[in-house]
């Protein structure tokens, strides 16, 4: 339940965010903010399932499908992104179900699930690269400039418009996160992440619940890819799909905090500022350095700060839970050997 105070804080924060582009118009800074908002939405989408132990390295694939399907439909069939985006999301959703169903039905969990999804990322990247006659391959792809109605083509030159669109999409992601967080589905998914048999004994259809959250996460990630494509008007296989993008999602979500709604957003702020700082500070000499820094930080975070920066900060602010008394802890040990 959100208290009055928190609701007020959200309201004031949102009002400030909406007002920002009208008061401050530096295009470079607005550009950075738009990127942060779009990637925040992508990371939030990943964390929808990541927070329940469903670690996917396949989300680069979903994002790539969102971006490329939308752009291809526009360029080849003249289909407006307003129709193209739902189609691209549906495509990503179908792929998620095709990969997810056998995994969940046959209980492919943990590391094995990560490996299956890793393959998914690789396959989507390869398909985009291999069909270069249509997608431009690794050279990238540009949606055709709209000659007519800009709104119909979802193409805007104005950064303020894009900022507001990105803000809306990001907010949608946060709202969905909270919606899941307060639903019974969260109980079921937390239970599944701990013990699938016990969850099934409580009546939970384990396969169905996992499929639902995977589908939701994939649909949202594809939307992120499509929005990114419409904003940048240029996509390459490496910027919207593949293993690097997938790893970046995992990194940002874990660094920011997997278990709090604004954690992935926090992660996006850190990763994008880091990448920009390296790009401006070192230029072409630092190409790929951000990935190196991500890797080192990821290891450090998983070991020392598994709840992420924001998650750990919020824990500090909360009142400490009561520590169970010594004899109770002993009893827990007896009841749970090996714990």
């Amino acid at each position: 339940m959100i208290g009055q105070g928190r609701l007020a804080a959200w309201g004031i924060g949102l009002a400030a965010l909406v007002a920002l582009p009208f008061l401050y118009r530096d295009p470079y800074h607005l550009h950075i903010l738009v990127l942060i908002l779009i990637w925040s939405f992508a990371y939030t989408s990943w964390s929808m399932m990541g927070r329940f132990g469903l670690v996917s390295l396949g989300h680069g694939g979903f994002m790539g499908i969102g971006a490329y399907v939308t752009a291809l439909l526009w360029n080849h069939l003249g289909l407006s992104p307003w129709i193209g985006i739902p189609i691209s999301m549906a495509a990503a959703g179908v792929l998620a179900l095709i990969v997810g169903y056998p995994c969940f039905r046959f209980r492919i969990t943990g590391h094995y699930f990560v490996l299956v999804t890793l393959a998914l990322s690789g396959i989507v990247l390869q398909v985009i690269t291999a069909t270069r006659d249509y997608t431009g391959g690794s050279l990238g792809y540009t949606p055709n400039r709209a000659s007519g109605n800009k709104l119909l083509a979802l193409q805007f030159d104005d950064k303020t418009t894009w900022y507001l669109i990105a803000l809306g999409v990001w907010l949608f992601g946060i709202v969905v996160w909270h919606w899941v967080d307060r639903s019974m589905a969260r109980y079921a998914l937390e239970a599944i992440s701990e013990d699938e048999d016990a969850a099934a004994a409580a009546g939970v259809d384990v396969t169905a619940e996992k499929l639902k959250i995977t589908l939701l996460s994939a649909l949202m990630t594809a939307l992120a890819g499509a929005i990114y494509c419409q904003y940048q008007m240029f996509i390459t296989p490496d910027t919207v799909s593949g293993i690097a993008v997938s790893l970046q999602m995992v990194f940002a979500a874990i660094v920011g905090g997997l278990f709090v709604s604004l954690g992935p957003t926090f992660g996006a702020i850190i990763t994008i500022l880091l990448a920009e700082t390296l790009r401006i500070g070192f230029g072409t000499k630092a190409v790929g350095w951000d990935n190196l820094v991500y890797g080192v930080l990821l290891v450090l975070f998983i070991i020392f700060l598994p709840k992420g920066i924001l998650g750990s900060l919020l824990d500090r602010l909360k009142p400490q839970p009561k520590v169970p008394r010594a004899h109770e802890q002993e009893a827990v040990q007896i009841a749970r050997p090996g714990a």
Partner: protein
Amino acid sequence: MLEVSGLVKRFGGFTAVNNVSFRVDQGEILGLIGPNGSGKSTIFNMLSGTLAPTSGSILFGGAEIAGLAPHRIINSGIGRTFQIPRPFRRLTIFENVALAGFYGQGRHSRVKAEEAAERSLAMVGLPTDRHASVDGLGAAGLKKLELAKALATAPKLLLADESLGGLDEAEMGQAADMLRNIRDELGITIIWVEHIMGVLMRVVDRVMVLDHGEKISEGLPSAVAGDPRVIEVYLGTDAETTQAAAAEARRRAGGA
């Protein structure tokens, strides 16, 4: 209400349950006993859907449930507990039980699920406080939570894999009384698995004894306690200990 016939479970070349048939009547408490590895838990896992039988039939309320997915069986009115409690530690005590109340009753209404959680927690004697953490529970508390989760699914038949080992004498008695209360007050039929005979014999209406996956005895507690095959399985064939044990078992069974 439950009719099991010709139930077989093989794991590779090993036959864990061999051609076991039994029935459970409405409102009854059936005790299922046997030494470690006799096939009790395997039978439970087949009744609750965790394992699919190799062959045989399980009729529950007239419908075949053998081989159905666990969540379907739970939703058809069979609740189960696990021998070693399996709480969800990322959820509060209340959420653990509300989860079972929601998903175990066809996902109809969250309000109803929460009411079921409150009733179940009260029934087993756990606090209905919504924020209490599972980490505060001891061995007896975790077993109560396990029971509350099963009750919240509104079962007609409760499979209680109780294994009271780890509890002291008073707690064992409480657990046994609780099962009887559940039957008397809620009208829930119970199959109770246990390998400590004494406590069980005081509560159950009938007992079925398993050894090496086969049913070796079935009947009233007093009769089964005196059955030489049961005594042999539990204690070996040394005559003196056997007779002493039989007398002890009869005394306990009679003194309910």
